[in-house]
């Protein structure tokens, strides 16, 4: 079979000592960044972008893949031990995982998370490898209108549907689109919004934007709330074997499988990454546990550290990460903030993910897919016995940790283009990020918009040019109609859900403002 041959070639490539070493460095660095409170996998990828500048593309992406998965692992370690999830994907894990840790079952919680993430990653990567020809075939039937529909889907899904407040999500989207338009227009060559500054002709660098919004914004946020004491401290470290007993395994195994099933579809649609599937998986486990308790076939430990509540979200999160890589490689569509940064990295190497990538850079793609498997195995080996060691990183005093993050951020932004303008932009965008965090405006839509904004504009103008101004070309054809229809359906489900939640909240407490809206 073609896929098997390709994958074997990929493994042969990725198992070379150099690439194995890079994968190892990637997972270790990624885990280290992920463990830091408030930092997750997307920040790990952003901060380590400059490190990979001097590697060949294949090596760089093998390292990225390691950083991505390592960041996920590290983040859930921090979530369990410290209750400091750095990214949406680890929030669900933190809920029950930290309670398990408080009950002295930290090793079991960490092992459950590590194995869950491993299973999710392996299953989803295998699916991606075997279905990539199908994805590529589908992508080849896409024209400008279809790609524009996909970007609209990504924009609306990440900003309006996923965020708690649709208006704030859309504001984040607008800020991202505004940033993405700066520079020379690729179609006409017109200079836009540069204010005559030559360094802005190429637009804002995605590295500057990401590091500023995520890392510098985090440093400012910590500084702004330093007096509040912060959440660092009171960590739980306890020695002990991370082995799961047979009773634990009987409970976690089905939960891992269910979590993986929740995660798989969400990686392939641009719905803001792993927040929704992790919470869906978490909710499903809670309902199942309640039902078991009612039937008397098991006890409902939710609220006191239920092991299923760690297993399912963790498997869901890493399954999402796996299929997100597939969507990125096959369609060129980033479905999460991390994938958006990786897309930018591809563009830096002059490559455009999508169907053509499989033809032109087949070696790289298959080596990357193979290294996803290798990275997962490495992480399992690293994390099962050493997870408590990672927690030692938390002993670094907070001032030094954030001072170090600030220095690394500046290094990354400066080294990307040796440009002082980028450093000033970093400072300004860091302050913008602080303001956004203060007012609960989500950051992920900004990143998605910065990366996909130019794609959306180019495809929209191409489609309209083909249709000679006729707007109906945008909804002409089954694929576009399907995409918009799916978006509409998701929007309706979310709107109904919110309405019901609001009504339930209104019953619980008398409504304050009757004449709103």
């Amino acid at each position, binding site marked *: 079979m073609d896929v098997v041959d390709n994958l074997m070639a990929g493994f042969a490539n990725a198992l070379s000592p150099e690439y194995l070493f890079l994968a190892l460095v990637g997972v270790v660095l990624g885990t280290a960044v992920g463990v830091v409170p408030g930092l997750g996998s997307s920040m790990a990828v952003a901060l380590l972008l400059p490190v990979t500048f001097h590697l060949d593309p294949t090596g760089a992406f093998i390292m990225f893949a390691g950083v991505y998965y390592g960041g996920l692992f590290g983040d859930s370690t921090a979530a369990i031990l410290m209750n400091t999830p750095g990214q949406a994907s680890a929030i669900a894990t933190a809920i029950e995982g930290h309670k398990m840790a408080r009950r002295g079952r930290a090793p079991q919680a960490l092992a459950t998370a590590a194995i869950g993430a491993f299973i999710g990653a392996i299953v989803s990567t295998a699916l991606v490898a075997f279905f990539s020809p199908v994805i590529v075939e589908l992508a080849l039937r896409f024209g400008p209108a279809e790609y524009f529909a996909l970007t609209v889907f990504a924009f609306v899904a990440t900003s309006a549907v996923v965020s708690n407040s649709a208006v704030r999500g859309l504001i984040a989207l*607008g800020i991202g689109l505004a940033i993405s338009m700066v520079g020379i227009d690729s179609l006409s060559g*017109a200079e836009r919004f540069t204010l005559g500054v030559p360094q802005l002709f190429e637009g804002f660098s995605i590295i500057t934007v990401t590091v500023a919004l995520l890392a510098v914004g985090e440093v400012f946020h910590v500084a702004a709330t330093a007096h509040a004491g912060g959440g660092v401290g009171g960590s739980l470290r306890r020695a002990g074997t991370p082995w799961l007993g047979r009773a634990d395994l009987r409970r976690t195994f089905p939960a891992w499988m269910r979590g993986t099933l929740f995660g798989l579809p969400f990686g392939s649609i641009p719905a803001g990454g792993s927040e929704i599937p992790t919470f869906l998986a978490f909710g499903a486990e809670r309902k199942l546990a309640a039902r078991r308790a009612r039937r008397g076939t098991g006890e409902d430990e939710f609220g006191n550290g239920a092991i299923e509540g760690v297993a399912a979200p963790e498997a869901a999160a890493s399954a999402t990460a796996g299929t997100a890589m597939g969507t990125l490689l096959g369609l060129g569509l980033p479905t999460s903030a991390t994938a958006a940064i990786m897309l930018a990295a591809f563009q830096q190497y002059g490559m455009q993910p999508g169907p053509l990538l499989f033809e032109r850079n087949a070696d790289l793609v298959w080596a990357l897919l193979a290294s996803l498997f290798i990275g997962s195995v490495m992480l399992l080996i690293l994390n099962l016995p050493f997870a408590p060691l990672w927690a030692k990183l938390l002993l670094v005093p907070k001032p030094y940790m954030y001072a170090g993050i600030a220095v690394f951020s500046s290094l990354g932004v400066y080294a990307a283009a040796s440009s002082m303008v980028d450093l000033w932009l970093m400072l300004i965008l860091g302050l913008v990020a602080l*303001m956004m965090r203060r007012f609960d405006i989500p950051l992920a839509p900004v990143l998605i918009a910065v990366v996909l904004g130019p794609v959306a504009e180019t495809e929209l103008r191409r489609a309209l040019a083909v249709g000679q101004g006729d707007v109906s070309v945008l909804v002409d054809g089954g694929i576009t109609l399907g995409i918009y229809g799916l978006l509409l359906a998701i929007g309706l489900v979310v709107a109904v859900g919110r309405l019901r939640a609001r009504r339930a909240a209104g019953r619980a407490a008398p409504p304050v403002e009757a004449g709103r809206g």
Partner: protein
Amino acid sequence: MSTDATTPARATEPDAPPRPPWWQGRSELLVAALVLGIAGFIAVQTAAIPVPTGTEPPGPRFFPTLVAVFMGAVGLALAVQVVLRPARPAQAAEQAPGADAAEDAPVRIDWRCLGIVVATMTVFIAILQPVGWLLSAALLFFGIAYALGSRRLLFDAVLSLTFSSLIQLAFVAGLGLNLPAGILGGIF
């Protein structure tokens, strides 16, 4: 939402003013103003974009116009929402059920600490080129550690210098990145 009712009540609790000032809970209007400002900026700049001759109909002004209109609309929507419903709902609690909601809830900003951090970073960027990476990065590390409460001044100074030289060594000597050498350029 039930939290809407509790937040203003908590704000007025400390036995003083019976009615909070109008701005209470409406500081987010600043965000709306900023968004409207960006929309205005885009609109003005869009009108000034030179359209090269021979450009096909949806030219370089087309998309910016859409974005300007979009941002104007969401900016207005946010302003209306904030005016009608001040004291933003404690979304942090929804986002992270089980996590310390108090940590993310509207906390008073520590302007002094934030000020030192921002000032340090400004100075760092300003002196990076003339002074060089080694000293300015050490200053950045030292300043932020100080702002966040570290008071072992001598130890911090040594640590900062060690940290910035290690990076210089690893990235310039090891990976061949280009960092400004500055006044210490002759030594290396």
